[in-house]
């Protein structure tokens, strides 16, 4: 969780572009941009940018019902007390049917459909409807995998509509935007949308197809509509809408959001009967609200607000729910069928707080008494940093991610590395398993800076380890190097001695000669603490210096620190 980045990752925010006049017409209230901005800020949305005509609003992805001008207006209407409670959308039974043929269970099992008659259309509005369709399928529909939406010219379809599996080669129609007929494989391999969304179905032997009773194709879900039945334009007054997908709830919700948004534009809703091969039939859209019980006491306890039953009902109505008192302290809340974000009563409680107004909530500080402390390893790291600064070293801070060239090839080492499978660049594709190569790389990039260069870093390195639950061992290390026209290993050892003695290790340390390729033979050793090898030191071999492109001699040491901050004595 966090600002910048972190949440941008967990939460992909969606932008909705609204024509200000259109939005205010739907809200039915005159507002200045500032008033609009203030209201949206308190409702979880934000204005990304605006001019005199257009406003771009950033919507949190949980509010899929606000991914259109119509949806935003609906939420604003209750929030600004133009309306109160749940928006009602009557649905008339059309009696028309959609027949699902056997064989789709493993491919794309579910379908939900609806009809919207007498909807307002214009070039701009059609663009808006398409934008909502796109936004919904991207977020809620997980890039069409879980659910995708199609809009069609109702008057040209011969019912019942058939949803059936079809052999790819037998599929043949002109995709939306072209006059040329293509077969299934051609659409998936060559059409722009086919390349994008084809992988969702292409692994199956048969693909889902929607046709009408005359055999005309509506679409190849989730890829593309046909050019004949699927071409909605400003002359279209009556729409047929279908949602197909792999998750029933997601499919139903997507349809509900789509049709209720269109109903906001004057459309009259009609239902369709979907007949599944197992004999069940379902009437869609089903706009019956879900009911959830809410204890006012729980809302008061979690928010810290004093709330009466009546007030709580009013805040919920302000947030577009219907609620009634069902015995003292208990509310029955009706959740609109277009809301997808209410999983638990805490979700209602948050909306009670939003209805109350975040600008009215007074921060408080409880007296939770605890005594704080740093981790022992942090204290140890800090102590070492102080000692190194005292001996005249500049602290540096490097990325944990690095390249195998730096860690292995240039260092003449071959210790195992933990590698990511999806690096953006090879320079940042593995986790460092030692600090020395990272410091040498740093030195190689600073050959024009003043000498001597005395640098150090204290930080964690990562080693593969099959015994660990995360298959890695993360160890704190300290590394320090000097680069100058003349370097002196004795001086370095004096400094290492100074540091280790001041860590209380005076009587525990021993140095022993060592032979490893990164150091000059006869000028390298290991640091033993209680007889255990804990570090290395020496003068870097000219071969390694050359690999790094370094033109001056270097002496260095690197040592492991105990994870718990304490050496076992």
């Amino acid at each position: 969780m966090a600002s910048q980045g972190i949440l941008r990752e967990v939460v992909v925010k969606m932008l909705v572009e609204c024509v200000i006049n259109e939005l205010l017409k739907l809200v039915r209230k005159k507002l200045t941009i500032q008033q609009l901005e203030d209201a949206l800020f308190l409702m979880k949305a934000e204005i990304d940018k605006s001019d005199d005509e257009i406003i771009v609003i950033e919507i949190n992805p949980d509010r899929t019902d606000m991914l259109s001008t119509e949806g935003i207006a609906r939420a604003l209407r209750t929030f600004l007390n133009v309306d109160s409670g749940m928006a009602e959308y009557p649905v008339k039974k059309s009696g028309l049917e959609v027949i699902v043929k056997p064989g789709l269970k493993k491919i794309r099992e579910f379908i939900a459909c609806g009809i919207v008659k007498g909807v307002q259309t214009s070039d701009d509005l059609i663009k808006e409807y398409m934008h909502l369709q796109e936004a919904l399928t991207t977020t809620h529909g997980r890039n069409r995998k879980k659910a995708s939406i199609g809009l069609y010219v109702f008057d040209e379809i011969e019912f019942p509509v058939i949803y059936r599996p079809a052999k790819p080669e037998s599929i043949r129609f002109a995709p939306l935007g072209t006059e040329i007929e293509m077969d299934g494989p051609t659409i998936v391999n060559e059409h722009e949308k086919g390349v994008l969304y084809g992988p969702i179905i292409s692994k199956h032997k048969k693909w889902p197809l929607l046709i009408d009773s005359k055999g005309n194709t509506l679409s190849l879900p989730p890829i593309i509509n046909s050019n004949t039945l699927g071409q909605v334009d400003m002359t279209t007054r009556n729409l047929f809408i279908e949602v197909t997908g792999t998750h029933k709830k997601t499919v139903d919700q997507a349809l509900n959001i789509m049709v209720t948004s269109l109903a906001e534009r004057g459309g009259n809703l009609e239902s369709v009967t979907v007949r599944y091969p197992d004999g069940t039939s379902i009437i869609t859209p089903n706009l019956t609200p879900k009911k959830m019980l809410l204890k006012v006491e729980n809302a008061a306890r979690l928010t810290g607000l004093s709330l009466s039953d009546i007030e709580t009902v009013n805040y919920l109505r302000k947030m577009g729910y219907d609620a009634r008192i069902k015995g003292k302290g208990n509310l029955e809340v009706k959740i609109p069928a277009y809301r997808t974000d209410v999983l638990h009563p805490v979700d209602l409680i948050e909306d009670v707080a939003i209805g109350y107004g975040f600008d009215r909530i007074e921060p408080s500080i409880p007296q939770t008494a605890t005594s704080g402390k740093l981790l022992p390893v942090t204290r140890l790291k800090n102590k070492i940093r102080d000692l190194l600064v005292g001996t005249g070293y500049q602290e540096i801070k490097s990325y944990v991610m690095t390249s195998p060239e730096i860690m292995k090839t240039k260092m003449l080492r071959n210790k195992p590395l933990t590698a990511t499978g999806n690096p953006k660049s090879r320079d940042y594709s593995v986790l460092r398993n030692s600090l020395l190569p990272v410091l040498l790389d740093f030195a190689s990039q600073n050959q024009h800076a003043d000498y001597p260069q005395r640098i150090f870093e204290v930080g964690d390195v990562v080693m593969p380890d099959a015994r660990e639950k995360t298959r890695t061992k993360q160890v704190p290390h300290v590394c320090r190097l000097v680069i100058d026209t003349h370097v002196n290993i004795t001086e370095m050892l004096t400094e290492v001695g100074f540091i280790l003695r001041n860590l209380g290790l005076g009587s525990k340390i021993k140095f022993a000669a060592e032979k490893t390729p990164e150091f000059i033979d006869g000028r390298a050793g290991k640091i033993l603490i209680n007889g255990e090898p804990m570090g290395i030191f020496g003068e870097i071999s000219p071969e390694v210096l050359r690999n790094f492109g370094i033109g001056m001699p270097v002496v260095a040491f690197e040592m492991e620190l105990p994870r718990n901050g304490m050496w076992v004595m």
Partner: protein
Amino acid sequence: MAELTIGERKVLGKLVEYDKLVSASELASELQERNERVISILNSIAEKGLIRLDTREHMTHRLTDEGRSYVKDGLPEERLFHAVMDLGGLAKMEAAVAHAGLEQQAKGISVNWARRNGWLEIEKVNGTTILKVKVENAESSVKNVLALLNKGNANVPTKLAGGLETAVERTLVEEKTAKMFEAIIVENRRGEIESLLSQTAEGITDLTPELIASDEWRNCTFRPYNVELAPAFVNYGKKHPYNEFIDWLKEVLVGMGFNEWYGPYVETEFWNNDVLFVPQDHVAREVQDQFRIAEPYDHGDIPDEEYYRRVKAVHENGGDTGSTGWEAPFSREVTTRLCLRSHTTPVSIRYLWEHPESPQKMFIIDRNFRSESLSATHAQEFNQFDGIIMDKGLTLRDLMGYLKEVCHRMGIKKVKFKPGQFPFTEPSIEGFAKHDTLGWIEVAPGGIFRPEVTRPLGITDPVLAWGIGAGRLYMASMDIKDIRDLYSRDLTWLRRAYFVR
């Protein structure tokens, strides 16, 4: 006119000798002095109006390791393109990759760029990825740029600017701004300069133990030093400014009674996402956002089967929390997958797993990873600062209070809140801070952990949580515009940089 110091005398003398515009670095090597010292002396003489000191900034470019390796072996996309050509213009992806001799790691990079350059087309035929050649010759300005820089050419012609930009973006080339100082004596002060240089220094320089012992000093005059000189820059040891900032944050949190905690960079998705109730099909878990670990192991272990069972139930049907859950099957394969943690919040949950009894206050400030190309605004590593408070009776108002207090202690006076949304907290909030120049900036997102997060841990008390981007706060306080400067590889910059509370 005050007399010259010894240093000034040396430098000015040299400048008279040169009698033309000469660079500070040349003077430094000629005088066998440190560059920094010469620049400092030049500044001081320039203040006296005796010399003219020019500074020039110029961009330098140098190849990175990756860039250098591509000069040697060719760009991966180029190698891939030629491999497909060799194979008759149409080839299965795996075959082309093998033919090109590309390592698995370079596969994605090569396919991606070959497609972006319009060289190859990618098709899926019956689940197999097929590459198709679209052009006859693969012309790459990136390649030309690399070749040029490799030859030691410092100047890249403008017609290759696009290639250079791409090469920098791909971290094949590193871009740095360098400053150059050049000095020349001021012609109409020549007479004055020569008279200054001709004055001999009078008096003694050093007080010695012998002079003190013999009382001889009473008969000496001490040659005066110029004590008004700006001190030269020297390179003593000091801490990294970003670490100093982090040390300060830690001090603030410890002062508020918070315990520091630790968690690993490499996590299972169980800890990174599932215990936090992030749905398994959430977009943030896909490869374009989150680093997956592929080698040497790609899956880890469940820490505790009983906890696993409860987390699974919460995802599938809400378990005993009163939630509907995500109403989708929960995959053990996905949850044991290894990744680089994308936020520090998993550490908060690890802490609660070990400390389920109230009251608790914990914090961590550490690194996290996200699959991003390194640029001025994005980095693949960033520091996050997470805190949690668990106690009976905690409320949303208390969370706002804590966030406000943390902000206050960091010097942020004005804070306001709006509702927010995170998959693992409800209610969720976002705190905005008033910054002098940046206006209202989002600094403090937080919330109360959802029951779907706390109940599987056996916790019923409220847990307040926040996760603040430490890097953004630091950048705002240090006026740093480029995110790469947080981990600057420029020693000269680091030697000059400092953090003051």
